[in-house]
């Protein structure tokens, strides 16, 4: 390893010895492509012509007017091919895997968006793809399971542990440990052992780079705050990255409070988590006092994870970003308000960040700008929303 990928006391490379050679190989390849013109050209060509970048920057005027305070802007990652920001990373890592001579892709998925993105990349690049998905998520995100299968991927329902995202990651890691010779594990968030947190951020930083240029061009200045939902934290890191050095721009992550952070049913890791090692990284996590990882709850499967990307834990610790939470009910309210006011069905994940903007806007002057990363579209959530609304 050239570095151990630390973010302060978080991050690192806490993996079984059987994975270390593969992680070393991956780190070398990742360092290599950052200065490789041919790779960069192919990656950006695919982002533009296959995935549809740049995505739009939209001033949500109706919503802003309705709330009567700050101006709310959306970075429209919901318009990216596949329906969420996940495609950036899937294309980047699939290209990298191909360059490393790997012939097979595996991935974990919670809501199914990362599984769909990986299945798309696998189909487009002709690589057999297997997706690990918790058995509970397979049921609650059935449309995405069908999408993955139609794209040619094999979906493995994971029956171990809590049968959600954390368990899917465990099984994907086990597959990888056995098959590193021909397989790349395409992790879908800024978590896991080094170099994954840095690499996934690298492929998503395009969100923040575009957003900064667009908001300056369209609004004439930088935003006062950038908001994004945080499960593992990939869309948040992607957009935060564009504003990291703009110290006047507040960075706000919004975690899933589920039934409330004072209950046992939430996923607010940055608020309630404690220091530990899980799935290759040091980070904060929801755990018992003797170190057993707890199951989480969120209405959005994509935020249902008991740990968080190590860089978020670090950004919170040094005070560069702050993290709040929204309950299931609040996220649903955000979903409904944005659907009606702007004609956009946001993903339930993104609705957590939207709710925080909706909550803040009336308390702020009219020339304040809140930029929300609208990280995905809500079509996948229709069944969940229908059930939650009692339909």
């Amino acid at each position, binding site marked *: 390893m050239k570095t151990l990928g630390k973010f302060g006391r978080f991050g690192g490379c806490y993996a*079984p*010895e*059987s994975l*270390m050679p593969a992680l070393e190989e991956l780190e070398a390849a990742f360092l290599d492509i950052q200065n490789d013109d041919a790779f960069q050209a192919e990656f950006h060509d695919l982002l533009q012509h296959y995935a549809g970048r740049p995505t739009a920057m939209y001033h949500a005027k109706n919503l802003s007017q309705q709330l009567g305070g700050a101006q709310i802007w959306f970075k429209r990652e919901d318009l990216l091919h596949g329906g969420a920001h996940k495609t950036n990373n899937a294309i980047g890592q699939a290209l990298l895997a191909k360059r490393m001579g790997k012939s097979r892709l595996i991935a974990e998925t919670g809501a199914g968006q990362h599984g769909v993105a990986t299945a798309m990349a696998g189909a487009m690049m002709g690589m057999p793809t297997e997706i690990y998905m918790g058995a509970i998520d397979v049921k609650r995100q059935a449309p995405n399971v069908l999408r993955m299968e139609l794209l040619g991927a094999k979906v493995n329902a994971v029956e171990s542990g809590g049968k959600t995202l954390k368990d899917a990651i*465990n099984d994907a890691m086990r597959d990888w*440990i056995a098959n590193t010779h021909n397989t790349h594990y395409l992790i879908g968030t800024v978590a896991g052992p080094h170099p994954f947190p840095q690499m996934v951020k690298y492929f998503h930083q395009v969100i923040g780079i575009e957003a900064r240029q667009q908001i300056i061009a369209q609004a004439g200045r930088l935003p006062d705050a950038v908001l994004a939902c945080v499960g593992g934290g990939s869309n948040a890191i992607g957009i935060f990255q564009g504003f990291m050095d703009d110290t006047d721009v507040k960075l706000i992550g919004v975690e899933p409070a589920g039934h409330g952070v004072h209950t046992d049913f939430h996923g607010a890791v940055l608020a309630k988590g404690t220091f*530990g090692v899980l799935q*290759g990284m040091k980070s904060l996590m929801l755990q018992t006092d003797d170190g057993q990882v707890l199951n989480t709850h969120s209405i959005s499967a994509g935020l249902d994870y008991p740990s968080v990307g190590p860089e978020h834990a670090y950004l919170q610790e040094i005070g560069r970003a702050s993290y709040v939470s929204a309950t299931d009910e609040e996220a649903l309210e955000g979903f409904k308000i944005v659907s009606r006011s702007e004609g956009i069905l946001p993903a339930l994940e993104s609705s957590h960040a939207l709710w925080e903007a909706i909550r803040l806007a009336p308390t702020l002057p009219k020339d304040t700008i809140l930029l929300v990363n609208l990280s995905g579209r809500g079509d996948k959530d229709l069944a969940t929303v229908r059930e939650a609304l009692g339909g």
Partner: protein
Amino acid sequence: MSRFAKRFAELKAQDKKAFIPFTLLGFPTVETSKGILKTLIDAKPAALELGFPFSDPVADGPVIQAAVTETLANGYKLPHAFESIAYARSLDADIPIGVLVYYNTILSEGADAFFQQLKNTGADACLIADLPPEEAEEVKPSADLAGIELIFIVSPLTSADRFASFSQYAGAFLYVVSRLGITGTEARYDSRLQELIGTIRQHSDLPLCVGFGISTPEHIQQMKVVGFDGMITGSRIIQVIEEEAKGNGSLADYLATMMQSV
């Protein structure tokens, strides 16, 4: 001389190999696990390898993952593991005891306190499944202070230049995985094992014990021929315990069969 060093020296003098059974501490319940520890020790194996249950054991296969889930559901807490180690030690003052732990368990206690408790309860060595040598400096001073040796894993993919980083930390024995992958009973050994032993021998004099997929006397014979000093059986023991609970077979008989072949 540590218990492991002494035991391996004795075995070498008798031209024998080590059979090292593994079980999960507190499995399936804290009470029944004590009887299992007694059965293991009564079989007179060379050493014991005892696992601390952790909710997310990524280096382990489905058998051990399911056993952990069951153990946690049955009310296991960390003090039960230390009590069990102390119980095993009370049955046999000389048997070397290694433990297998995931790093988060150590962090939850603090490294100094964790290793001290290991020592106090009678354990000799500790393998941390998700702590590669790159990060070993984080625990080495605490382990040294308590007098606990650290065991490291070597895989068929571990390169020669990684061995250098092992040697300054490694004690007791090197745990060689027989194939790429996770723990389990599948016996599909890597063709590079013989070569791997040659490479390791250029860098380390520690005994070499092989694990993953060692579940029958035939497997033990094969690994003796390849040149290992010891064989570790884990997932199969968990299965035998489960089968015995259903009235099929007996752990004592299984262990006797395995012991005969070493």
